[in-house]
């Protein structure tokens, strides 16, 4: 009897961008859907850089710019290559009014807003509830077991984030290994809007994103980031877990050093720490994508490794994969068929979308860089800075001699065979991105 009462069309586990987008898609098609979130509210367990992307977000929430809690519209992207003390910064600024690319947001506010919108459209939101395991009968996922009660459904969608203990439980993926994730730590630092505008050269409501290479992470597979919010700055970094383990480094020590770097320190000076946080980022990419569907079940978002590290894209892949899983669930409900075969539509649609295409494009990126981390993220970033040091120094040494000294240094710093290996790694990587 209880089973009938607790039976709905679809259960979605995880109230992040993937789960919310999925649930709202199902509710909009007139089906019953329960969204289960373990935190006190959606967003309360979630951490990102970060910025959400305008176009993919509009696909789920067409008018979100009118009512969502947005911090600042991104008008500038900066790429900072940090040496030990020096820095080379490349910047791209675009102030065109009409096409916002991204907005900085605070997940504690933004995810909560998304979940409220989903509720308005008919999603049953169950918060403060952890799904402990999936209920599997006759080879079909039939429901979920929480601390308090069991819920049953025709389809369960796993949007439970990077750790996805549930995908692991039913064998859709094995255990993650330390190469497959980056551990990131972040601080939100309070600063007045006026100071932010001044230090980042933006107007009110305009924002700037920093992608940071090198510095305290020189020679490590790690990236730093900085985002401007209305009255705070988010600063953090992510380093591949295997690298932290091998080098026995505490992630927050790296962040402290990053905040002290001469390029960064003036930007956060005198700010007050509002919140410290940590989260994993999926890094395995295409090669580590789990099995994406089975009888009565689909996996989306971070749980499916859908992150494009080079571009800091994750929420967009989460939203769109959630939407596709939702659409597939609606089709399956229409036919009353929840078999593996029926749900294979999910994978087909993902293959047709940018999601699988982009993951394929970058399939060799991480392994390519991992094979020569100390060169690509250590030696060359330093070299870029030493080029500018040479170029800007005025010291009565003839310029031609300086150029030749710089060129020669490549061959005296390292052996020819090493240089050839770097060159070959770049060619292979470019080939895999552009062609194969």
């Amino acid at each position: 009897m209880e089973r009938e009462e607790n039976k709905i069309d679809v259960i979605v586990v995880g109230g992040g961008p993937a789960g919310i987008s999925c649930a709202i898609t199902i509710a909009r098609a007139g089906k019953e859907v329960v969204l289960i979130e373990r935190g006190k509210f959606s967003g309360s367990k979630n951490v990102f850089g970060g910025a959400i992307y305008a176009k993919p977000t509009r696909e789920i929430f067409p008018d979100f710019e009118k009512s969502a809690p947005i911090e600042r519209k991104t008008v500038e992207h900066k790429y900072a290559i940090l040496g030990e003390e020096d820095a080379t910064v490349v910047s791209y600024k675009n102030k065109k009014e009409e096409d916002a690319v991204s907005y900085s947001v605070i997940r504690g506010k933004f995810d909560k807003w998304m979940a409220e919108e989903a509720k308005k459209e008919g999603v049953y939101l169950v918060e403060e509830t952890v799904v402990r395991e999936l209920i599997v009968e006759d080879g079909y996922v039939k429901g979920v077991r929480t601390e308090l009660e069991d819920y049953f459904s025709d389809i369960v969608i796993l949007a439970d984030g990077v750790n996805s203990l549930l995908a692991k439980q039913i064998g859709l993926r094995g255990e993650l290994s330390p190469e497959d994730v980056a551990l990131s730590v972040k601080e939100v630092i309070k600063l007045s809007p006026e100071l932010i505008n001044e230090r980042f050269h933006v107007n009110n409501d305009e924002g700037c994103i920093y992608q940071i290479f090198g510095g305290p992470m020189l020679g490590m597979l790690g990236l730093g980031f900085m985002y401007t919010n209305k009255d705070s700055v988010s600063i953090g970094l992510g380093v591949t877990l295997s690298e932290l383990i091998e080098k026995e480094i505490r992630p927050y020590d790296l962040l402290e050093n990053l905040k002290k770097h001469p390029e960064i320190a003036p930007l956060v000076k005198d700010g007050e720490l509002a919140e410290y946080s940590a989260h994993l980022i999926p890094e395995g990419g295409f090669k580590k994508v789990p099995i994406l569907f089975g009888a009565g079940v689909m996996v989306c978002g971070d749980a499916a490794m859908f992150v494009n590290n080079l571009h800091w894209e994750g929420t967009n892949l989460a939203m769109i994969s959630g939407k596709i899983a939702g659409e597939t669930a609606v089709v399956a409900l229409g036919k009353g068929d929840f078999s593996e075969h029926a749900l294979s539509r999910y994978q087909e649609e993902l293959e047709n979308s940018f999601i699988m295409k982009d993951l394929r494009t970058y399939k060799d990126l991480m392994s390519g860089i991992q094979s020569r981390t100390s060169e690509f993220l250590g030696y060359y970033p330093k070299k870029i800075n030493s080029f500018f040091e040479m170029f800007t120094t005025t010291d009565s040494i003839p310029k031609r001699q300086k150029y030749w000294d710089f060129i020669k240094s490549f061959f005296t710093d390292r052996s020819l065979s090493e240089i050839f290996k770097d060159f070959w790694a770049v060619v292979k990587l470019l080939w895999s991105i552009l062609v194969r």
Partner: protein
Amino acid sequence: MSNLEDKLYTVKYTPDSESHLRPVDECCRVCKSKVCTKICPAGVYEWDEDKKKLIVNYENCLECGACRIACESSSLGWEYPKGNKGVTFKQG
């Protein structure tokens, strides 16, 4: 360390009365790296050399999952805290 304390002071927690992190003592005793004590972003684990046992300050856990994946012998018992417990990020 005091620096980490300042950071954790900014985090809102609703601690449970029991730990959601359960190291297996026999495994920890023979564990060479004690890597959980190094990489944890909240400094949750400390090695007690006298008792030959991990001290687990689970109340400080940020629920990232890194220790679970890093554990040398994959023996660390790890689950999410109960629904109304653990960390609540206001900013994220």
